[in-house]
């Protein structure tokens, strides 16, 4: 049916001759061949079909058709076929069983949109769940769907549309008057009305959208072809003021085209209407950018026509008819949605009736464009490819601009840093100068002081004989006593000096670091208390091993004392009884502590350094 119909739409003189080029006139019935060639062709074709069963006979008839159109035509036919198939399958089940519940089942099954409607209105459904309202809504939907399913083959679409509109109105009235809805807020009622429309229409979409009893589909094809033919129409022809060169505007053009195309993919009429509204709002935004100010209807309509021409939405007529027939007219068609929808209808009607006059161009040019003899330089397609690169360039330019800005920032920052760096040595110099001017007076006396101290230092250096550090441990406490005990101290020092000097001199310069580090150094690093503790332990060994008999006397008593100091740090090793003894010894020997000050002197010199502790530890070890 379509194979015959479509070629008749486009016959030009070339088609009259036999397609084989034999010179005879061809005939439409013979697929454009002369009788002889046709016969040959048929035979060839039959052989072909047996070979591969590729195409139906009609495909060969379209060889004259432009490659592109042929492809399109085929695509459309396939669409159609699948559609018809679907419908016939559908109808078969209907006639076979006559059971509406089965059709219903089939409609509900595999209908993801229906689930979507449900999930999107879940809060509403929850709100009315287990109320008489929910029951009533179900009942209404059920009876309405049943009604439509019963009528679908008997009544025309217009009557079905009337039924649907009645249903909306009756339901709205019912919600007001029925006691079932007494507790429902008006807002919820609004949403319920919306819900039943969405639900039933999504459910019945397959039956009500583009029903086979109408010519919607043919009209769809007609308008699609028409728009395709008009693809050369530019914004300039329509006198619409879209700045195609601005990337923002172009982005919005794409968005509104997408919105319009989206109309076919959603199902409920109010969703379709919402797509139109989105599209139109985007057009207003882009016009606002192009015109600079709110756009008027004079600017809007041409822009919408342009968008429709460039979008060429699928099944445009079917969608428009579906909305007009099944959208709740009283609710939506007088408001903003209705206004935009009317504009869309206007745009479609304009496109259908478009003439040379309505584009303000000579008839000759119009015909040339329509027949494809002339291709304008600014068709959308070529514009798109060009736009693509322009778009890219725009993006790059903006990227470069950003980089430039960043670069400038970095340069500024680096300059600042440079300045700071230049200032820094100056500042340091100034500070140093200031410090020098402040300090020189202090430096000279400090040099004198060490000379005074040197005596003490010399003493202290000389003093640390092995015994002394042991004493020193105790001295942490008696430091304050130093002054009081100074006399006794010095006397003790005098005692120790003699023997210790030799020992002290040898270890102190070399300090036997490695040995110390391996032993006490490690421990020493843990803390003063540890070192003293450990050093205490080692001291015991060392004192035992070392044969400083002179020291023995002192060390015996000192050992106890050192342990006393160790008691500050919990020493598990030492027995408690010794502690008591120590305490005795400590208190008694408070006066004997004398040697301590020397070491404390040492400590006071180096307290800041850890090494100092280590040294002291070392001294302990010794």
């Amino acid at each position, binding site marked *: 049916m379509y194979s015959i119909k479509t070629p008749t739409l486009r016959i030009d003189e070339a088609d009259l001759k036999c397609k084989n080029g034999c010179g005879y006139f061809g005939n439409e019935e013979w697929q454009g061949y002369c009788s002889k060639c046709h016969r040959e062709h048929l035979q060839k074709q039959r052989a072909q079909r047996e070979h591969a069963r590729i195409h139906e006979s009609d495909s060969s008839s379209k060889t004259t058709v432009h490659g592109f159109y042929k492809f399109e035509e085929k695509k459309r036919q396939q669409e159609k076929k699948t559609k018809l198939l679907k419908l016939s399958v559908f109808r078969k089940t209907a006639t076979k069983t006559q059971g509406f519940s089965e059709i219903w089942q089939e409609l509900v099954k595999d209908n993801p949109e229906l689930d979507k409607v449900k999930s999107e209105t879940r809060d509403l459904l929850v709100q009315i769940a287990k109320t008489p309202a929910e029951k009533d809504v179900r009942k209404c939907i059920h009876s309405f769907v049943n009604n439509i399913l019963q009528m679908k083959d008997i009544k025309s679409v217009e009557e079905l549309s009337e039924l649907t509109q009645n249903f909306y*109105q009756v339901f*709205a009235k019912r919600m*007001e008057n029925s006691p079932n809805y007494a507790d429902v*807020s*008006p*807002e919820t*009622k*609004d*949403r319920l*009305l*919306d819900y039943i429309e969405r639900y039933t229409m999504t459910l019945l979409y397959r039956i009500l959208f583009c029903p086979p009893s109408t010519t919607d589909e043919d009209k769809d094809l007609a308008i699609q072809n028409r728009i395709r033919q008009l693809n050369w129409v530019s914004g300039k022809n329509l*006198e619409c003021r879209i700045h195609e060169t601005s990337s923002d505007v172009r982005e919005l053009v794409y968005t509104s085209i997408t919105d319009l195309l989206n109309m076919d993919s959603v199902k409920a009429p*109010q*969703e379709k*209407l*919402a797509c139109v*509204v*989105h599209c139109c*709002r985007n057009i*207003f*935004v882009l*016009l*606002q950018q192009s015109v600079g100010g*709110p*756009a*008027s*209807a*004079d600017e*809007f*309509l*041409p822009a919408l026509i342009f968008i429709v021409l460039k979008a060429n939405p699928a099944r445009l007529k079917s969608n428009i008819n579906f909305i007009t027939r099944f959208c709740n*007219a*009283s*609710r*939506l*068609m*007088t*408001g*903003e*949605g*209705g*206004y*935009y929808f*009317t504009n869309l*209808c*206007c745009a479609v*009607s*304009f496109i259908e*009736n478009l003439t040379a*006059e*309505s584009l*303000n161009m000579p008839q000759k040019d119009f015909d040339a464009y329509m027949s494809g003899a002339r291709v304008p330089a600014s068709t959308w397609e070529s514009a798109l490819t060009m736009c693509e690169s322009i778009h890219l360039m725009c993006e790059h330019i903006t990227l470069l601009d950003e980089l430039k800005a960043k670069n400038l920032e970095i340069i500024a920052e680096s300059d600042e840093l440079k300045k700071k760096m230049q200032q820094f040595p100056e500042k340091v110099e100034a500070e140093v100068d200031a410090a020098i001017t402040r300090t020189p007076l202090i430096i000279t006396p400090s040099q004198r002081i060490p000379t005074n101290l040197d005596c003490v230092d010399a003493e202290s250096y000389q003093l640390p004989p092995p015994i002394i550090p042991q004493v020193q441990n105790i001295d942490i406490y008696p430091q304050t006593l130093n002054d009081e005990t100074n006399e006794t101290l010095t006397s003790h020092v005098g005692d120790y000096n003699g023997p210790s000097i030799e020992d002290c001199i040898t270890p102190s310069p070399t300090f036997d670091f490695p040995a110390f580090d391996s032993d006490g150094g490690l421990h020493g690093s843990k803390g003063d208390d540890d070192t003293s503790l450990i050093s205490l332990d080692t001291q015991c060994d060392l004192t035992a091993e070392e044969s400083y008999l002179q020291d023995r006397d002192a060390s015996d008593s000192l050992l106890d004392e050192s342990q006393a100091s160790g008691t500050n740090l919990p020493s598990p090793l030492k027995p408690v009884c010794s502690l008591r003894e120590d305490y005795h010894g400590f208190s008694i020997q408070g006066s004997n502590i004398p040697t301590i000050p020397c070491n404390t002197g040492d400590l006071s010199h180096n307290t800041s350094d850890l090494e100092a502790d280590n040294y002291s530890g070392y001294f302990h070890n010794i």
Partner: protein
Amino acid sequence: MYNDMPKVDLKVVLLGSSNVGKTSLLERFIDDRFNENLPNQSTIGAAFASKEVCVNNIKFTLGIWDTAGSERYQSMTKLYYRGAKAAIVCYDVTNLESWERAKYWVRELRSVEETCVVYLCGTKKDILDEGKTATPDLDIVERYAAGIQCKFYLVSNKTGEKTSELFDEISKDYISDPDNLHSVMEAITLTANSKTDSRCCPIG
């Protein structure tokens, strides 16, 4: 998403040639709306506007539909005034051609939408005030308006003179029609418990 489209009770359509000031009239309407500080959709386009009006303590929504004035879209304009309760036919008081077009719209409306109340509106009054002469003469227009029993307004979109009066008059006339009152009242009783106004079927 479709809930952000308020329902409109009174559909008013703006007709007239291009450049007579339909859009300015609509902008005036929108400006008034802004002055009243009513929360509504932002103005991205001056082609459609809706406003809630209150006459005799009856609230209803007025929706203005602007149309493209260009002659090339003339044949489609009947799509716009389908179901319109009122129509403002504009013409430029100094432009004879726009007057001829206005008369065409009036005839058209009278034959297609009988229930539609027509308001004749001469725009650009400020130009007249500057000393220009009206073409055609205002007497002729007034006589014509009286002859077809429609109200004639001389407005200035520049100064805003009489524009709000025009819209007020339209609202009043609408509500004074018992049929319209009935449908609006129905909507009011339906929504008596809440502030939202919607639902009802004012299509006559």
